[in-house]
């Protein structure tokens, strides 16, 4: 019965029921015609969409090519990258700190961290940006001194101390820290209780245990959502246009308000955001790989290793290599 559906590898069919080597199953693969039909259907759809965009008289293609590498746009790209990197780095450090405070058994620290997350996660980012941008309206002077005395160490004008760029950076960082804290906390909670016990049993202090044992293991859980947050951050920098920080989106709106090519400039900006978010997924992949060590018995090959292996036409799977060498 089943033998009829199996085809022997290179065996001459002699007789009505050919004898098949029971060691090998070289079966005719299951066919999936509907996948092909759907793929063709979608392909046609996408081509039509592309053509309609390309031939749309309302889109001025030369404007896109003119502005995609425009120096002003490029400076906006650089500032966007800078804002993303700095905000993510500083907020991650703050996030770890808040998560540790939140999980500590010190009730003061615990409450403080909870209040922070509550306030910064509970209000819109846009409002926080505007708030930091217009802090000068609330406190025109920022000074440091001894409370309840006239003694001041320094006193500066708020708008001098916090220009728009700093205000934007502050808003993004402080907001992100609240989200990062929850991500780090979930990562730390994912580490088995036995790991703490083992670390304590060899005489490690709580702080040493945190940095040497808990966080390295928590990273495996932390990195995927943090990659997500980094991509969000990259796009959220565009919100800083409300306080006139000259990042990518602000620059684009400034240009389009002059040449009235809004759609073209938005397409330029979208291309850049898409490109940057694509690039960001590369370090995430390698970070995940690094912190995944010890989790799997052996790490899977990287895309580059796969590519090189494919070019050499040697199978990646060692078992298969063995059997091929043997045959």
């Amino acid at each position, binding site marked *: 019965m089943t033998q009829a559906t199996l085809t022997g590898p290179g065996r001459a069919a002699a007789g009505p029921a050919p004898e098949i080597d029971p060691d090998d199953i070289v079966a005719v693969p299951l066919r999936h015609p509907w996948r092909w039909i759907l793929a063709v259907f979608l392909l046609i759809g996408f081509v039509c969409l592309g053509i309609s965009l390309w031939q749309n008289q309302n889109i001025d293609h030369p404007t896109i090519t003119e502005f995609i590498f425009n120096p002003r746009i490029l400076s906006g790209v650089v500032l966007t990258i800078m804002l993303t990197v700095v905000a993510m780095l500083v907020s991650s450090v703050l996030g770890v700190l808040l998560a540790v405070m939140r999980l500590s058994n010190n009730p003061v620290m615990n409450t403080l961290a909870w209040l922070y997350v509550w306030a910064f996660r509970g209000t819109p980012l846009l409002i926080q940006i505007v708030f930091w941008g217009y802090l000068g309206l609330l406190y025109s002077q920022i000074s440091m001194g001894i409370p309840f005395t006239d003694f001041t160490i320094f006193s500066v004008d708020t708008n001098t101390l916090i220009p728009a760029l700093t205000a934007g950076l502050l808003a993004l960082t402080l907001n992100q820290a609240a989200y990062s804290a929850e991500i780090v906390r979930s990562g730390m909670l994912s580490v088995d209780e036995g790991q703490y016990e083992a670390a304590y049993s*060899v005489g490690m202090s709580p702080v040493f245990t945190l940095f040497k044992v808990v966080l390295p293991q928590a990273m495996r859980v932390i990195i995927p959502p943090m990659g997500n947050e980094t991509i969000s951050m990259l796009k959220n920098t565009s919100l800083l246009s409300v306080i006139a920080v000259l990042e990518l989106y602000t620059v684009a709106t400034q240009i389009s308000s002059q040449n009235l090519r809004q759609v073209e400039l938005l397409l330029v900006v979208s291309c850049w955001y898409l490109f940057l978010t694509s690039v960001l997924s590369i370090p995430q992949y390698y970070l995940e790989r690094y912190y995944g060590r010890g989790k799997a018995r052996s790490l899977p090959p990287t895309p580059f290793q796969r590519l090189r292996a494919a070019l050499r036409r040697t199978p990646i799977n060692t078992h298969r290599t063995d059997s091929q060498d043997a045959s």
Partner: protein
Amino acid sequence: MTGPGPGTSVATSRATTASLASGPDALGVAVEPLLSALKVRKSYGGVEVLKGISLAVNPGQVMCLLGPSGSGKSTFLRCINHLERIDGGRISVGGELVGYAQRKDRIFEMNPREVARQRRGIGMVFQRFNLFPHMTALENITAAPIGVRRISKQKAKDRGLELLDRVGLASLAQSYPAQLSGGQQQRVAIARALAMDPQLLLFDEPTSALDPELVGDVLDVMRTLAADGMTMVVVTHEIGFARGAADVVVFMDGGVVVESGPPAEVLDNPQSPRTRAFLDSVM
């Protein structure tokens, strides 16, 4: 202290628990016990799991704690290195109170750093190994000596390799725990505990999570340690190990010590019907 618990009446006094280990040695010189527990009590949410445990272990002795699950033997073991706080009584290791400091007539709670310092002298091996999965076998062993004892990396590495050799795993120094079998992981865990040169080693059911054919390797390592004079407290269900390696066998049930004494007496001629019932069920 506590009134007579449900188990107290059954406890035989063939050898009163404390005097057995801390009594005069063969030469008649009083030996200071390395570990002594006095009327240790511990409750979880109103349920008392340790109802006044008094035990003592002399330097170089091996004590095996036997008993049905829920008898409190693991909890007691975890109290010894202060992974659990005790609610009453005293535990001291090497003449020092565990987790508390006594100044004059008052008892003070230790801060986490002091507890950590104290734990360096008390090694522990867990049922589920609890190796650090992100470190190689060698790194698991050297992490605490380098980070806590502050000895040089090279020295720690040499010592780590020596310990791995001692547990028969020198060739697997660079393997991650996930690449090792359960028995190998447990032997790395023993080497990790030994790397801090503890004066006392605690074993919490070290072979319970292992496949039967891997148990032997771990027990062999433990027997060698015992023969080398390491002071050990072992919670185990391996009666054979207790018979061969223990100096004292303690049978616990319901949070009390039911019976204790040399293995030949407790295992082969138990006085308490509960001990007998337990031994019949596991042997």
